[in-house]
């Protein structure tokens, strides 16, 4: 495959035999000019990404490392404190609690979400009517803002006047302190994540399923396999790479949960008992509510390590060869 150079084919430079100093300079200049003529437009075309990334992507990360060694409220001069912020981070109960909360919410949301998505995708992959309408219906939650979702779910799961508790009461069950008890809060946040992302993951799985040849299913049906066997022995193994992808994205997204608990309780506390205090919410609280920029930066690195560790674990667990 050939690719295009933007200037006319290069003329060999300095074709006249060298005569004196002047001609030694000339080829050098024309080579530079030629280089610019040929490649300048390409470099300009791709430059905006690298410039913006340098300013708003790379520099902040380097600066975040520097900040984590400072004590700074954002106004007064910075004070170098060495590793003190990291030492504090390692003994900070609140940070560990936020890690634990995040992990619990992540498990409570990711496992049912991906299971539902897989089942929905498997059903959508059969030759049934209304497939595109179903896909739109399942996908709509994903384009809704988390702020709006948190407001509506905050009402649905309200302790006194919420619809869910009204339903529970009407069938004679005990109402649940969705927004006041530890598990209630975690389940409410997980419910929002499940509601918003199940359809998205189902669409991804569906695309993966459509790549599996029908012959395989047909052959298995001839051998007398029922739907469950088709699902377990063909769908799941062949979908493995796609499942790996969704687990990794759900991990990265799930460990960064912020908006749901922040809007649900209207502050950075994570609700009663801080049961909804996630890692990123804790970062926000330390940096932008308590104005501890230095410690906030250290919390940011702590989050980075947790996310990295979980991504590696995911990869290891899911990427080992099938037995």
């Amino acid at each position: 495959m050939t690719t295009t150079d933007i200037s006319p084919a290069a003329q060999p430079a300095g074709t006249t035999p060298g005569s004196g100093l002047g001609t030694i300079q000339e080829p050098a200049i024309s080579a530079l000019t030629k280089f610019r003529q040929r490649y300048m437009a390409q470099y300009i075309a791709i430059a905006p990404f690298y410039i913006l990334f340098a300013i708003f992507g790379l520099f902040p990360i380097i600066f975040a490392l520097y900040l984590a060694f400072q004590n700074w409220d954002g106004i007064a001069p910075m004070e170098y404190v060495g590793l003190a912020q990291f030492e504090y981070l390692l003994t900070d109960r609140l940070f560990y609690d936020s890690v634990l909360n995040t992990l619990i919410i992540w498990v409570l949301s990711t496992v049912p979400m991906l299971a539902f998505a897989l089942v929905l995708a498997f059903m959508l992959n059969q030759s049934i009517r209304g497939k595109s309408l179903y896909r739109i219906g399942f996908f709509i939650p994903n384009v809704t803002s988390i702020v709006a979702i948190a407001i509506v779910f905050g009402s649905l799961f309200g302790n006194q006047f919420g619809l869910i508790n009204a339903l529970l009461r009407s069938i004679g069950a005990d109402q649940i302190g969705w927004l006041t008890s530890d598990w209630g809060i975690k389940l409410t946040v997980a419910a929002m994540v499940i509601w918003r992302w199940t359809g998205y993951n189902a669409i991804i799985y569906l695309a993966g399923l459509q790549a599996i040849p029908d012959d395989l299913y047909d052959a298995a049906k001839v051998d007398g396999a029922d739907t469950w066997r088709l699902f377990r022995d063909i769908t799941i193994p062949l979908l493995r790479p796609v499942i790996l992808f969704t687990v990794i994205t759900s991990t990265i997204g799930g460990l960064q949960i912020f908006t749901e608990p922040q809007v649900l309780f209207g502050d950075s506390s994570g609700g009663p008992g801080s049961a909804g205090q996630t890692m990123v919410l804790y970062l926000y609280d330390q940096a932008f509510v308590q104005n501890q920029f230095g410690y906030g930066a250290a919390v940011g690195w702590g989050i980075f390590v947790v996310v990295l560790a979980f991504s590696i674990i995911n990869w290891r667990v899911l990427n080992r060869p099938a037995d």
Partner: protein
Amino acid sequence: MHRLTPGKVVFHVVLLLGVLISLFPFYWLLVMATGTETDIYAYPPRLIPGGHLIDNINTVRDAVNLPLAFLNTVIVAVLTTALTLFFSSLAGFTFARFRFPGRNVLFVLLLLTMALPSQLGTIPSFVIMSELQWVGTLQALIVPGVAGAFGIFWMRQFALGAIPQDLVDAGRVDGCNYWQLYTNVALPLLRPALAFLGIFTFITTWNDYFWPLIVLVNPDVMTLQVALSQLQGVYETDYAAVMAGTLISTLPLIVIFILGARHFIGNIAAGALKA
């Protein structure tokens, strides 16, 4: 193919139940946004929409400047989308169809940046914005993301399949300059990819909350999501009014999504599986 077997009836029942769960919160939002505050605290709860939407919208307008927040959100979403489409298609086309020294290294670098954690740079980004005196302004939301790695990656992948090298070469022979190749050859062929990236960017920007919450410190300059969360936080606010505000800030996006669903749903999966 579409024979209705008992197994398929079960599938339809399960799928319909799923759609019902997907859509119910919107119905409930409508019920609450059109009722009175008393309805919201009633037991048994009122289950059908009422006629108080206009009253509730008026109450919201007294509490926050929702029209201004709406306008701000439209400005941010439209500008971010337009600039993203321009920079992504230009760079994606260039990576796909032009050879230049360092191309492969630069592209790998671009891919690697997608793995960097975004929250890590939040505090420094805020500091940069205050140095630029951009805190509390809309450009703080627009500028950082308009040449994102994902969009360029997406455009390059699409361009490799959609823009034949021969066509670019032929354009060159006919004397097209770089800009003409981009506008006359690349852009028409990239249309499906532009449609997807445009809808995706618009929706993401419209819904963005974490960064706007941090950087929009000025109550006179808010986006819808920030304004909504403020409404929710105020205890005296009429709950039915909060719901009305939520409804009118959610609807435009749903409409855009349904109109663009054809371009969108298939591509989001294709993009994910390619990545």
